[in-house]
């Protein structure tokens, strides 16, 4: 499996670290909305198909990336710097791949 880092280009998956579901929305730190915190910690879409994920190119440039991966085929549909602030899972952020 190759992931195309927007900075480094295509690299083997072994250089990357999975940082979790990219659909989660963290409540503001002072929030006391228990449902929101519960959803942040536990609720996952777990789709069979395209999935928004956060990865870090930990064995390369160390940038955090927003990746759309198909959980059935492992195809990487797009990659972009997480810093770009593209939030929505379903509006795929533009990337190199």
């Amino acid at each position, binding site marked *: 499996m190759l992931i195309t880092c927007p900075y480094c280009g295509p*690299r083997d998956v072994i*250089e990357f670290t999975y940082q979790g579901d990219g659909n989660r929305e963290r409540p503001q730190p002072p929030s006391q909305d228990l449902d929101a915190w519960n959803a942040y910690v536990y609720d996952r879409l777990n789709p069979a198909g395209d999935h928004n994920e956060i990865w870090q190119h930990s064995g390369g440039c160390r940038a955090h990336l927003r990746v759309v991966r198909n959980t059935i085929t492992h195809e990487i549909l797009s990659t972009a710097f997480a*810093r770009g602030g593209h939030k929505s899972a379903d509006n795929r952020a533009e990337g190199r791949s």
Partner: protein
Amino acid sequence: MAEQQLPERQSPLEPEYHPGSHGNFEHGIDVILSETRPGSILQLAAWPGEEKRLIEIIRKVTGLTLPDGAGGGTSSGARAVFGFAPGKFTVVDEAEGLAAAFAGIITPAIGTLTDLSHGRTAIRIAGPKAEWVMAKFFAIDFALPAFPLGAGRSTNHHDIFAQIQRTGADQFDIYVFRSFARSFWKALCHASEEVGYEVQ
């Protein structure tokens, strides 16, 4: 600046550093391995949006002009610079004291300066089989069109993080953590045996 009494730097490779010809060299020496021992190895980082200002500072201090693009770099004899991550650059000088030249110019508003001179070891591999040996270590494309002269790459070899700069058509400078350098060096020597290597 007043002359300082600097401690003599010892190489972490020393117990395993054996100048001379090794391996299968009867048919010729196809790679030359050496430790370049630069006096200064710095890591410079720009905050988002400040990259251009940092690149301009690097040009003023070192005289080296970074080319555009991810992983771009250049070298000229004693000095070298390359991008290794977004907004981050490694700057190397044969002489010690480069950190002092940058200090005060890279203001907190622009970014940060980290002196890694004692934290990294610089290993050079050169020769017609340099690409071949490197390709056994790192899963990246070492061909000249994919990895142009001066360019830098961040990658790793079995969890040993490495920054690599191409400083010649068949020459690469590899920067590894000092604590891993001897182990990496030994592995590199083993990998070079089949092509015949010389340690300089």
